């Protein structure tokens, strides 16, 4: 499903002394099947943006279009349930949403609400649990007996079991150790590729954005600050630093390399190995001259 925001504003507690603008004149397009990273500090409007994607809030003004669904201030989405079954959201610390007696029941909770037939739910559980790394023997256990990392996986399985077309991930790796973070991001990326999902990743990690996303949107104080391909956005060190964001390590290094050696190695999202061989070639070239 294509997603479009057109001049979207969102104002909290409108008409009270506590009124404040969370999103201001925000416009962007997310084509179906793309992997988009949304980056910004706490309070930049990221979480308000997410809530528009499955109709948890409606814009104060402007239009939000998600596939065939339209959200505006004065019109209610007729089939909200269908919208929510097609846009899955993994919120920050999703393990906090677990509540059922067994892991299996918790995973089945979403699909049940969306009236998926029982045998289809069972089929999905068998499919999804190995993908997210939940061993079968855990299915009958209480989710509250599991480790933090396992609980997180169960909660994510609960969203994936809805089989959404759009998957929204709000800092899905927060609080995990490095290995857990890497495993989880790779899992989402594989799924994105395999299922052709539209994936929207909200993150603080420039490294993840550069590694997985094909489009980056940077938010600052509720407005769109920058947008583009990662390799275009992340080389703009000055602009990023202005909103207290750092460029990814690799770009930082290439900048410093240029300063020291007077040699510019343009960043094209090369892997670390490719960069190494470019440096090697440069050093060798310098030697032979």
């Amino acid at each position, binding site marked *: 499903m294509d997603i479009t925001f057109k001049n979207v504003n969102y104002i909290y*507690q409108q008409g009270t002394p506590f009124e404040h603008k969370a999103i201001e004149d925000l416009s962007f397009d997310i084509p179906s099947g793309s992997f988009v990273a949304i980056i910004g500090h706490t309070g930049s409007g990221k979480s308000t943006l997410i809530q528009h994607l499955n109709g948890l809030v409606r814009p104060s003004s402007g239009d939000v279009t998600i596939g065939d669904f339209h959200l505006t201030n004065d019109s209610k989405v007729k089939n909200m349930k269908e919208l929510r079954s097609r846009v899955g959201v993994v*919120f920050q610390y999703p393990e906090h*949403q677990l509540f059922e007696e067994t892991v299996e029941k918790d995973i089945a909770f979403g699909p049940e609400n969306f009236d998926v037939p029982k045998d289809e739910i069972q089929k999905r559980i068998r499919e999804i649990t190995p993908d997210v790394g939940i061993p079968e023997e855990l299915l009958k256990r209480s989710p509250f007996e599991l480790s933090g990392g396992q609980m997180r996986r169960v909660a994510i399985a609960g969203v994936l079991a809805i089989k959404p077309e759009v998957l929204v991930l709000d800092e899905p790796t927060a609080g995990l150790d490095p290995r857990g973070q890497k495993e989880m991001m790779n899992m989402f990326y594989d799924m994105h590729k395999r299922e052709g999902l539209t994936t929207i990743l909200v993150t603080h990690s420039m490294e993840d954005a550069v590694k997985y996303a094909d489009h980056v949107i940077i938010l600052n104080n509720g407005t769109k600050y920058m947008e583009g391909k990662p390799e275009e956005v992340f080389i703009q060190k000055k602009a990023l630093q202005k909103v207290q964001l750092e460029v990814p390590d690799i770009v930082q290094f290439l900048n410093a390399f240029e300063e020291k050696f007077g040699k510019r190695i343009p960043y094209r999202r090369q892997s670390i190995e490719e960069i190494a061989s470019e440096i090697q070639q440069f050093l060798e070239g310098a030697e032979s001259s």
Partner: protein
Amino acid sequence: MSNSLIIGQYVPGKSVIHRLDPRTKIIIIFFFVFIVFFANSVLSYGVLTAFALASMFTTRIPMYYIIKGLTPVWFLIVFTFLLHLIVTKEGSVLIEFLGFKIYSGALIQGFAISMRFFLLILVTSLLTLTTTPIEITDAIENILHPLKKMKFPVHELALMMSISLRFIPTLMQETEKISRAQASRGVDFRTGPLKERVKAVVPLLVPLFVSAFKRAEDLAMAMEARGYQGGEGRTKLRELKIEKRDIFIYILFVFVVAGLFFTRNWS
């Protein structure tokens, strides 16, 4: 967040009433609640009402705000009045229509009860409007202090109250977050038959309790790590001090009480 629930929500300010020692406010209100029941003449009600209204104006909290805060209570006051009008059968009949007789005694009693009710609500909401919950907690701890000798857990009670106050906003944010997550998984909190809506509360309450227990456990550990071991030998940062203005209010209140008893039975 909801804006409608403002009965007694603290409104920051610098008025004399705001700055009174919270103990002063609690003690005076305690006695006020007590003496309201001694009023029995129009004039004695007048004395009390004058005191209550004067206090209200002194707070400088906008009138409309206080009145709006009392909205749900207005209904009760009017209802009490009407009930007395119908039920009480004393004195002489004043009006008679559609088979109902309204007695003079009913009018007087209805007026008296509603008036008492109004005064009680107004004065107690003045306390919470001008005093932060934590000040009230401190004051209660201080007032109950003598009970400590009787092994009453005064300090623990006060600590419990202050921690609850501290965590109310946190838990409210948490509730909002969890309900968002469950709504995204297809839970409908707003529409549908009552039975379904009651069922929808389970996926909200269970995670909320689980998280509250986790927080309690963490907090207990953090408190222990910071050397907490009960109320024994503790000092306090928050200090309560009786100032000149408190003495003044006490004297004024004594006059009000005297005035009340003087005007009793006047008619």
